[in-house]
């Protein structure tokens, strides 16, 4: 069994989806049970894969390879390395919590769970793929179900038209879920188009025999090609990672999406983007990376600061969390741009930390919205009196978001800024730290406005705290945040192995340039 473990992790949700398709829509309990079973198998598999990763041997392990299109050099090959374990774990936790968080869904639940499971299969597939084309294939599978998930189960939310573009604004129905879904899909697929072009370029230049990532990494591409191709990968994957100015799909998309979809999308999918930039862009194209890294770092610093300021000016709870994701993903990209082990460790750790934190955030926002039927912060206040549990978890997520020591957010931000500082990138580190400071302002402001103070007002007196399955989701995510905050080595030992492996490909170039 163990030799097929990675395939099992990838296939379990898809197989569960296949069985769910065959169930009648009225078998609501069976649909949920099967979905949870699929998620559980993947989560358990991820835990096993993570725990049994041989740290002494490091390098890629649990190799599996099946021919898909042998004549074109496409193989369905999976493996895990230091980075994969923590990311699989993250995905497993989020989908498990996501299924729990969607337990009460009333509307067309069969289709919903099918799409959710297919999507998460795609995510698992990306993290373990060792073949660039298969990587891309899973990437697309992870991106597209989002269109239906947001378009069908999302929430429309009128955004008043303002400013010089209000005619266009009205014309496209900004705030409408259809608008958000279409915008997200088209922007991400334009990104995919850039990635596809880059894949063609690499495949053709490497002799057009194989899409294997190790093979592609062993080829030396000429400097000119690297400089042209790297931005395609950076912006292509970066669109999904919310790289400024291609982040605009993210607030609309996350605000319109249903709870579990927001959790998955901000918690895991955006990481696919950052993972793609690092795993494909930076590892395969060291010279291109070195050429562009000042831009990548600068844009990441903008991301951190700009996202934070945008979040500060929102009054819609979901938009705040969505913009904070943009800001936090900037931290990931900033860490990646340092090209140091510390920075990369921080970046990958931040992927996990932010994934869990934002998952918790969106789960809580979903809970609050479900009960209060509003996401507008000015209308809220004093909710801690009626939903103390939710308030506690929200505060925990906020503390991690602002990087309080003892929470997971602190570890990653500390590592990233340390990496940037050590590498002499003061110009990135300072706005980055400033961004973290602004984050503290807006998350604390939001927490106070929603949960603390006098209240709640008359209409919210009947609000209740979280219930059964919801507690499950919150408890898992909250525990992870604290555990990772006080015991970061649990993941960092793994992540470090991955960073070192990948940086060895880059280091000769980095050192050579200096």
């Amino acid at each position, binding site marked *: 069994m163990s030799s097929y473990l990675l395939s099992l992790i990838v296939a379990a949700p898809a197989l569960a989806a296949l069985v769910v398709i065959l169930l009648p829509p009225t078998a609501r309990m069976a649909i949920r049970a099967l979905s949870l079973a699929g998620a559980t198998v993947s989560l358990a598999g991820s835990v096993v894969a993570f725990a049994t990763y041989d740290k002494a041997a490091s390098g890629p392990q649990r190799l599996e390879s099946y021919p*898909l299109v042998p*004549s074109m050099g496409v193989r369905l090959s999976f493996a895990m390395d230091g980075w994969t374990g923590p990311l699989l774990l993250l995905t497993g936790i989020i989908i498990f919590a996501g299924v729990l968080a969607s337990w009460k869904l009333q509307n067309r639940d069969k289709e919903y769970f099918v799409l959710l499971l297919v999507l998460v299969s795609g995510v698992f597939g990306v993290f373990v793929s060792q073949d660039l084309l298969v990587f891309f294939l899973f990437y697309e599978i992870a991106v597209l179900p989002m269109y239906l998930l947001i378009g069908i189960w999302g929430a429309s939310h009128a955004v008043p038209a303002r400013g010089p573009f209000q005619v266009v604004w009205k014309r496209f129905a900004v705030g409408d879920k259809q608008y958000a879904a279409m915008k997200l899909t088209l922007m991400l697929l*334009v990104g995919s188009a850039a990635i596809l072009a880059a894949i063609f370029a690499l495949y053709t230049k490497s002799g057009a025999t194989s899409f294997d990532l190790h093979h592609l990494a062993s080829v030396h591409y000429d400097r000119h090609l690297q400089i042209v191709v790297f931005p395609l990968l950076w912006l292509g994957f970066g669109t999904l990672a919310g790289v400024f100015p291609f982040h605009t799909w993210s607030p609309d998309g996350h605000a319109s999406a249903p709870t579990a979809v927001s959790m998955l999308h901000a918690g895991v999918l955006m990481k696919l983007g950052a993972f793609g930039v690092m795993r494909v862009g930076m590892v395969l194209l060291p010279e291109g990376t070195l050429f562009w890294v000042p831009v990548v770092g600068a844009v990441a610093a903008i991301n951190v600061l700009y996202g934070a300021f945008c979040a500060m000016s929102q009054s819609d709870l979901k938009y705040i969390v969505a913009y904070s994701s943009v800001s936090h993903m900037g931290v990931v990209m900033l860490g990646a741009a340092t090209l140091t082990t510390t920075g990369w460790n921080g970046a990958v750790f931040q992927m996990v930390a932010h994934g869990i934190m934002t998952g918790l955030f969106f789960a809580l926002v979903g809970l609050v919205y479900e009960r209060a039927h509003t996401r507008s912060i000015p209308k809220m206040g004093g909710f801690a009196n009626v939903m103390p549990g939710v308030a506690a978890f929200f505060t925990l997520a906020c503390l991690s978001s602002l990087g309080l020591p003892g929470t997971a957010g602190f570890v990653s931000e500390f590592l990233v800024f340390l990496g940037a500082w050590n590498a002499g990138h003061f110009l990135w580190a300072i706005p980055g730290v400033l961004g973290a400071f602004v984050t503290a302002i807006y998350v604390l402001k939001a927490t106070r406005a929603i949960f603390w103070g006098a209240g709640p007002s008359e209409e919210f007196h009947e609000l209740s705290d979280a219930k059964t399955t919801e507690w499950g989701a919150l408890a898992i995510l909250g525990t992870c945040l604290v555990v990772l905050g006080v015991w970061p080595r649990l993941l960092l030992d793994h992540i470090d192995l991955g960073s070192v492996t990948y940086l060895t490909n880059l280091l000769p170039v980095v050192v050579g340039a200096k």
Partner: protein
Amino acid sequence: MNDLRVLWLPLATSALAILVLLLDVMSPPPVRGASAPPAGRMIGWVVVAGLTALLVASFFVDSTGTAAAGAFRGGPWTTFLGRVFLAAGILGALGGMDDVAERMPRRQGEYWLSLVSSIVGMTILPGARDLVLAVVAFELVSIPLYVLAAYAKTDSPPGNPATNGLASEASLKLYLVGATSSAITFFGLALLTGMAGTSRIDGLGAGAMTPLGALGLVFVLGGIGYKIGMVPFHHWVPDTYQGASTPFVAFLSVAPKAAGMSLLAVLFTSGLAAQRAIWVPPLVIFALVSMAVGNLLALPQTDLRRLLGYSGIAQMGYVLTAMAAADAFGLGMTLFFLAGYVVTNVGVFLVVHVAAQAGGGYGFEGLAGLHKRSPWLAAALLCFLLSLAGIPFVVGFWAKLYVFLAAWRAGLVGLVVAGIVLAVLGLFYYLRMLQAAYMVDGGDLAVPRPGLPLRLAIALCLAGVVGIGLWPAPFLDDAMRAGHDLLDHRPAPAHVAVAHR
């Protein structure tokens, strides 16, 4: 004997056509006022069974070799395309059976005869190595289609006069444009023949290219371009798709296009390989404008048949992209794309047809609430649309991927980049269809209840789209082999030239 073996597919298909004719003649004449005579539907099933038998047989008969004194050459190339045409024929016949029986009950025999005749022409076309044979086959493909396009003209339910007018327009446009394009093609071929001194396709490119020959070449390109709906010769496509009966359009939108592409490949990629410097640049431009115009004009369409017409124009642009690579890889990927396109496009047209039959009409509103009215149909539509848009795990992903890869490898980087961007643009209107099916409330529209043949056809298309998408390797390899077969088994040009002069 050898000739019989090599030509078995055209011969067997002709036999099927004769069988259909005999069955039609011998079946009792329809009684006026009676409902559809059972004989017509029976003939339809005979056609399906016959074509299926031929498709199965194609895996057991080796047709490699030349026949008719070198005018026809069989091999993996003809076999692959033959299977594509047979599959399209089976799907088209299944899809059209109920429609024909309901709307034109008294002329069913002729419908099936025309359909099979057209397929006979298609099975000859890819193997034709002499222009005379190619021209005959080409016309044999086209002329029955003109008739079929007008089939919805009469016998349609009273009280639906609009359909009649549109059907006449559809057929007339197809006929006039088709006849003109044939004339232009033949004129071009005459010029090429005159220049080369031979009507053998392998000898066409032997001599140096004269200006007159180059003119002929452009004429041929334009003429075939009409048939495949390449921009700027595409104007008939949306009108015909809208006017003719939709199940027939499902067939029309794939099989003749594939036939036209095969002629293009035989003539240009193979016959005029030495002149590629002359025909590749225009082909690149045609591919680009086809993708651009098709995708852009599909955006504002409100009639799904017209939308799919423009989408088809764009899809032909993708095929031309691979064709412009002008090598065996490009040809192989052209074939693979066409094979995938058959199952995808027939499928999408049939679903649209079924949904329209349920009362919603052919606009976006016809798809409204399909997910609720018929979840399986909606799921099938989802797969077909994803395939047209080129999203995994369906066949369209691999098709588009390899089409672009082929062009990229041939150095057409700019074309590929433009194509990928336009393909993303195209996603918008496919998603709009999806939106109609999944996110709009259907109100009190009826539940679509397609008959057995239609359900079978859609199920087969779905199996093809998902099956090839999950396991593309054997199909890709077959397509590659076919592409190599066409290019690698040419007589040396110099030798042919000497032999004919």
